[in-house]
């Protein structure tokens, strides 16, 4: 991964000046969705880019070593080898960006990937995912344990209570402690935007998370009623841009929750390209948190290569 965001001192004046005009953001989101990528090879290339940005995720109560193992195998070979070969992409290291599991399954994932001699990072959600309503002490301990088990990326959730009541300083110190607990593991901070109320709050929480040293900011856990939407993403990437322009540190962005189709994946890439530019179109700075998205992208690529739509049994299951 590239340079990390070291964070900066909490700048409450900056936070307090934030203003977001909802209708203007909604309008911008409409515009972004209207921006089209060309067809054929253009679309295929963009789809493959999306694949390399996926954090392939399973976060269920019934996760066991066997389905985590399958997930890891899918992450290593996300698109059928022969399909990649016909596009001359088989030797370009097309894998997903990471696999993402619960802390208890980190060891399983690390084991599977190590056995397959893959260096795909294992990401773990932590800090009382998804609600974050557990004591700080156990949340910190959870992070340390996941790191110990071999997770190199930690997706933490913020304390919404602090954000909603405007206790930005407390939030800042909490995230800073998580960052410390992460050590060398990269930290993605989940804002749970569906529970923050307003766009202004989302912007402020993004700023505070970045000031506290997050390497990524992430929209949602996938467990709230409202997940990653384009307008909220625009607010967050604007905060990323603002932070970059002021400090020179690049922070990544990860939408997650409800992203299912190849078409949506393209819109996400367009949004990043339009708002932050090409330099953000890499797995180092952009991730898509998804589980079923990959299947749809693979179907689209199958169609590009063969000109036919595949039957469900023609593509390997994850």
């Amino acid at each position, binding site marked *: 991964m590239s340079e990390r965001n070291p964070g900066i001192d909490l700048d409450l004046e900056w936070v307090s000046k934030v*203003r*977001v*005009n*909802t*209708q*203007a*953001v*909604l*309008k*911008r989101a409409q*515009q972004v969705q209207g*921006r*089209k*990528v*060309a*067809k*054929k*090879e*253009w679309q*295929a*290339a*963009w789809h*493959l*880019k999306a694949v390399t940005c996926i954090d392939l995720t399973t976060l269920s109560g019934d996760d066991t070593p066997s389905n985590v193992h399958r997930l890891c195998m899918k992450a290593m070979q996300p698109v059928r080898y022969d399909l990649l070969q*016909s*596009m*001359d*992409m088989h030797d*370009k290291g097309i894998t997903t960006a990471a696999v993402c599991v619960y802390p208890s399954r980190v060891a399983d994932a690390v084991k599977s990937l190590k056995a397959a001699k893959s260096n795909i990072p294992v990401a773990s959600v932590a800090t009382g995912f998804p609600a974050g309503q557990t004591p700080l002490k156990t949340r910190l301990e959870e992070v340390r344990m996941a790191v110990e088990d071999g997770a190199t990326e930690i997706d933490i959730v913020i304390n919404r209570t602090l954000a909603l009541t405007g206790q930005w300083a407390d939030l800042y110190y909490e995230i800073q402690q998580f960052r410390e607990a992460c050590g060398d593991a990269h930290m993605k901070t989940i804002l749970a935007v569906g529970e923050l109320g307003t766009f202004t709050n989302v912007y402020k929480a993004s700023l505070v998370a970045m000031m506290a040293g997050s390497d990524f900011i992430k929209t949602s856990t996938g467990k709230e009623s409202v997940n990653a939407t384009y307008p909220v993403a625009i607010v967050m990437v*604007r905060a990323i*841009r*603002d932070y970059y*322009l002021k400090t020179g540190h690049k922070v990544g962005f990860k939408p997650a929750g409800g992203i299912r189709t190849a078409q949506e994946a393209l819109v996400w*890439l*367009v949004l990043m*390209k339009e708002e932050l*530019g*090409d330099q953000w*179109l890499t797995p180092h700075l952009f991730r898509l948190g998804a589980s079923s998205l990959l299947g749809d992208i693979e179907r689209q690529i199958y169609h*590009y*290569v*063969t*000109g036919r739509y595949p039957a469900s049994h023609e593509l390997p299951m994850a």
Partner: protein
Amino acid sequence: MAERSSHSVYDIFKSMEFGPSAPSAALTAASWLELHSGSLGLFIDGKFVLPDNRQTVMVSDPKGEDLCRIVCADDEDIFSCSSSAAAGFQVWKELSDNRRAKVLLRFASSLQRYSQCVCEVCDLCQTPGSAPALIRLAQYYAGWAQLRHTLLPGWSPRGVVAVMSDDILFYSLWLKVLPALAVGNSVIVVPGVKLAPPTLLLAQLLKEAGLPAGVLNVVTGNNSVRVKVAQNHQINHITYSGSKQDGELLVKQIAGHGIPVSLSLSVCSVCPFIIFETADVDSAVDGLMDAAFKNYSEWRWLVCVQESVYDAVVEKLKFRMVGMKCVSVSDECERGRVDAAVRDAEQQGAMLIQSCSPPSSGCVYPPTVVCNTAPSSSLVVSPPLGPVVPLLSFRSAAEAVALGNCRPHGRAASIWTEDLTLALETAKSLCVGSVCVNTPSVTDPSLPQSGRRESGTCTDGGGEGLYQFLRASVAPSRSEPVSLDYTGFGTAASRFLVPEGSDPSSVSRSCSHLVRGKVCKADSGYSREVRAPGGTVVAHCPDGGRKDVRNAVEAALKVQPGWMKKSPATRALALYSLADSLEKRKQDMATSIHKQTGLSIEEAAQEVELSISRLSDWAARCDKQNRHAPLLPHTGSALSAPEAVGVVGVVLPDTKPLLSMVSVLGATVSMGNAIIMVPSERFPLPALDFIPILQASDVPAGVVSVISGGRDQLTQALANHNEIQAIWYWGSAEGRQFLQHCSPLKRLWLLCEEEVDEDGWKFWSKPSFSMQEEMWRECVVWKSVWIPTA
């Protein structure tokens, strides 16, 4: 296997380019043009006419290739077109409101059906034309057609209306055509060359929607066709949308024909784009880029940024503009002008933000922001049409308003702040027709768009947009222009003679006029004789001139803004006090009228009574002006309110010298204007005798000035003062011709002496409700404020 092109997937994977946008085949447009064998004729009397032996003009597509030919109409074509339009008018106005509305509704649905074709033709002709906007426009005015007699009784259509436009504004053209049709006029459209093909297509669609033959004719050709159509005798009203130069020229060329002209001059209008520190700066930057870097845009923006966020805005613009593609400009010559203006600004020390360096040829230019522009730079003063935006900084809201108002244009403004109070205060202070808060612009037919200053003299859109095409009073009859020495008009030195052989027993009294709220002599010191109908000299009145007008305007400008800001109730009370004051001296006034005009003392007393009641009418209307909130298809709030025009100059008629004066005085002053009145040259005494009454009332000094003297001299003086926004004129045909020629951009209301319309309404003594409404509408300009919300 799918076919392979030169771009490998891996290359694209690395570069992440968007790829080429699929070129639209424009199949339906091509087949429509093919149907006409690439040669579009004129649309006269409900069908395409392709006369032989006419000059033609080639319209080219965006690639510079020939698209189709259009015919330049000659006199014969214009003649047949105008007689068809006159016949069409008779048919169309007789139809019921419902029938007319149905035609427009059917037109909306056929636009829907052929929207693909309409869009393609617009694209090919390089004119932005959005089908959904046109459909909504047609539906909106179909509604007005349906309600025409219910909501607008007492108004008649003007007759044959000529709608003219330049090359750019397709939507603006139809924003005039459809309301004109909706209220029962027949229309002759004279589109600019590039607008001709889509206009002809829409004319055909209207015909198919059941519009009777002749109600809509389209005449194409170069600029000279415009003038030829305008001079045609069948035309009753002309309206033009386009650039200031062409609009001004058009009015000059038809001066003296006795046709009223209304202008919407939004092309090249510079609109302030104000970003306050309380704004959502990211959204403001997005909005700016969206508005300023469009292909073939017709507006220019002047961006004013509060100093505290100036650097942030510049940085965000730099970041966002990286890699933006070049934008189309109308032609090579325009590109040259854009480039020259940018180089010029650079010379003056401005800093450029440019997405790429400008190509040396071709009709494209890269999006460019010019930071730290001098307000005197040519980019700000006379900006070319291109993707170039000058950026200025300001310190306070007051300075932002000053920067925004310091331009000859007054079309629109966009202000960005999350502070609602600041937004509304700024919107109120800007001298523009429409203000958009936190959005660059809005197109909806329900929002009136009007131009202030050099941006036009009429209101388009909304219910207000209908009145351009309606009249309440009798229109002045058509006339032929006379050869007039425009430079010599009204400059004849006054003849001052030492009275000879006058009767020493009756020494005539000496009157004063009212300038700067003070009773005084003429600045020149001269005076002129006032004679009774019998020929005896009854008084001497001041012989006012340019200097008096200048002094009056100076005073008016000082007091008018404050007067406009007074509460309507205060203005009402002032007018009531004036009516009272007149009541107290009605005997004197009646005597004055009697002596001056020779009317019997009873008739004179009657005129005074009517005048008192007229003043009370206007006083009563002060706080009952109709401001309203238009209903919008989007979420958000809109306000539309009338504002005072500013300083109005009025040349009063000879008839009813007192009544006519208090009528216009009441109307203008009640709406917050300042007024400079020139009383009748023949009968000035009642107006001059009214001055003490005025001074005894609560109307602030300077709001009303009365300058007596030669009518032509004073008309000339009013016309040549640029601060006077409107002139109302009851006088000679030569005067009307002179005014159209010499002040084409002022709001001119040119009328004849006493008018009695078909229903027996008399303009002064017995005006219908709609006549009063018409006068009220001449006193105001419309401002709409739109605040979109989520």
